[in-house]
């Protein structure tokens, strides 16, 4: 299904991500999720816009804020719920949890709890793609804070030098964990760093999935043509904290409320006519039912068998 520019399709995918994470917060409050989570509320348009231009055999690598990237690529919601709920039915059987899961069935190379570490790994998938010659592309998402990690600099330079088919998506949500990125770097637009690697860099509105899809399409086509990596900086805002328990005392009063008026789902709904609104309401109801079904199915799987804790250390 080609869904480039199909706003209804992209609304549905964004709603699925939002509903998945909202439901996870309920489950956490109910004691069904151990550990912390890093949610992507408000940033869904980026993963969904990029996913809309990818082929099933492309590779995706994300940060610990990666639920949306896996869902946008088609990862099974039951497996994702079960993973975050630490159950055997999880995509990794409960070994990875919310911040470090992978899904080989959809070429999702995984989230990463080490800031920036996924970019070298994505370069490796791009090397495979280059060598296999089937036009595959390796997409990697990082946050604005990760652009200050050495691994990112090294990997971008290497990917550029080897002309690897890689697309780096920087989700610039203004905060580098709990401090403003503008206080951590002297440049206004992170995309200008691309020039230092000799690759194209663009800054785009990350709250509009169609805009994201258009920029991603350019970058992906460039990579498929064998012209090397591109850096896309997608501007957005987090509607939630750095992690699920973050009270966000560091954010100015009113910032989140203002961001909520510009978040991608609200944007589409506020611009919709009555006919479209009815369609979107129907989608919301369908997604709610899908989410409840997935939660029930995840709950129905067992806790991981303690006898398997030492399995899979080696092949």
């Amino acid at each position, binding site marked *: 299904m080609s869904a480039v520019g199909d706003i209804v399709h992209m609304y549905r995918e964004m709603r699925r991500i939002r509903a998945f994470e909202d439901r996870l917060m309920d489950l956490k409050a109910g004691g069904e999720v151990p550990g912390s989570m890093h949610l992507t509320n408000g940033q869904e348009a980026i993963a969904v816009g990029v996913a809309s231009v990818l082929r099933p055999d492309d590779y995706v690598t994300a940060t610990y804020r990666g639920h949306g990237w896996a869902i946008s690529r088609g990862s099974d919601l039951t497996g994702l719920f079960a993973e975050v709920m630490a159950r055997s039915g999880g995509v990794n059987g409960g070994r990875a949890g919310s911040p470090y899961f*992978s899904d*080989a069935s959809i070429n999702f*190379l*995984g989230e990463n709890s080490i800031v920036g570490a996924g970019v*070298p790994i994505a370069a490796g*998938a*791009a090397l495979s793609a280059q*060598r296999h010659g089937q036009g595959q592309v390796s997409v990697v998402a990082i946050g604005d804070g990760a652009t200050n990690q050495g691994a990112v600099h090294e990997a971008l330079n290497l990917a550029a030098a080897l002309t690897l088919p890689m697309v780096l998506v920087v989700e610039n949500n203004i905060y580098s964990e709990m401090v403003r990125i503008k206080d951590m770097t002297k440049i206004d637009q992170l995309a200008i760093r691309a020039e230092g690697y000799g690759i194209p860099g663009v800054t785009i509105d990350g709250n509009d999935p169609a805009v994201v899809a258009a920029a991603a399409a350019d970058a992906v086509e460039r990579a498929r043509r064998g012209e090397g990596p591109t850096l896309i900086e997608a501007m957005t805002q987090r509607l939630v904290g750095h992690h699920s328990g973050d009270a966000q005392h560091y954010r100015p009063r009113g910032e989140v409320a203002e961001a909520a008026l510009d978040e991608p789902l609200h944007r589409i709904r506020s611009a919709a006519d009555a006919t479209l609104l009815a369609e979107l309401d129907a989608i919301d109801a369908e997604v709610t039912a899908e989410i409840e079904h997935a939660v029930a199915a995840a709950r129905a799987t067992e806790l991981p068998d303690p006898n398997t804790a030492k399995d899979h*250390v080696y*092949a």
Partner: protein
Amino acid sequence: MPDATQTLSYIQAVQHGLRWSLEALDDTVIFGEDVAVPGGPFGATKNLHRDFGDSRIFDTPISETAFLGMALGAAMTGLRPIAEIMYADFMFVAMDQLVNQIANTHYVSRGTYGAPLVIRTQQGYSSGSCAQHSHSIEAYIAHTPGLRLAVPSTADDAYQMLRAAIVSDDPVVVAEARMLYPTKGDVRLDAPVEPIGGGRITREGADVTIVAWSRMAAAALEAAEELAADGIDVEVVDPRWLAPLDFDLIAASVRKTGRLVIAHEANLTGGFGAEIAARAAEECFSDLRAPIARVGAPDVPTPAAPALQAVVIPSAADVVSAVRRVVR
């Protein structure tokens, strides 16, 4: 087959192992700093770029983090990369990729992703090498679940163990010994590819067991000859692999001789010798007739000056002294 066994230097054996991997396995690719056109800083990849081209062997920027991560991503998606870290000391630049990424991949994904890759490096001191070109890194690697570690001490092992590493589905670090690169030995080029793991008794004896690897494996044999003149019959065990460690072989030898000396070039505190000593104490306590002795460098960074190095680098003489202490 004629010429199936050739006398080669250790570094030539490595070269043959790499050539074998490029010929036998389409998915192997070799990369690192100076490995392609220059042929490797120590000549390990000599002529391979000429014979196999850019698509199989290429140079990377001086970016250990980037290219070890690239090795992982490539291994997860169908290639069998062999990455060269020029000096083992440079591994520390990329420890996140090694410890947090490569080592975890198979476990955390519940086996749905693997990391069948090889990291070749060389370690140990040499004349004039400074404190950033002399580390023996085996304890750092062996401490990390998920990694395999080879420490070949002969030319034949350098060839056989490299091939075993390449066909293994686990991530393997092969830590060669730079000081042994010129040493020659018979290399069985047509031997069947071994599974990873397995140590070897390199000298049989009845009075004391010396466990030693890498450069110290040869030093232990030298020490054993000297001790034989005094009527001390030494058994030498070369574990070859520290992960997986062939502890059964060590335990059987200790049960036979009742005495254990462990020799390595790395400094003592937290060194891999401590692991072997602890296991021997746990599993062979009633067989031991003397305290276990360890030989290693003192806990001092390696100085560059040969006059200073001579004080801190373990030698065959140090092994002889240690054996004399435990057989007294």
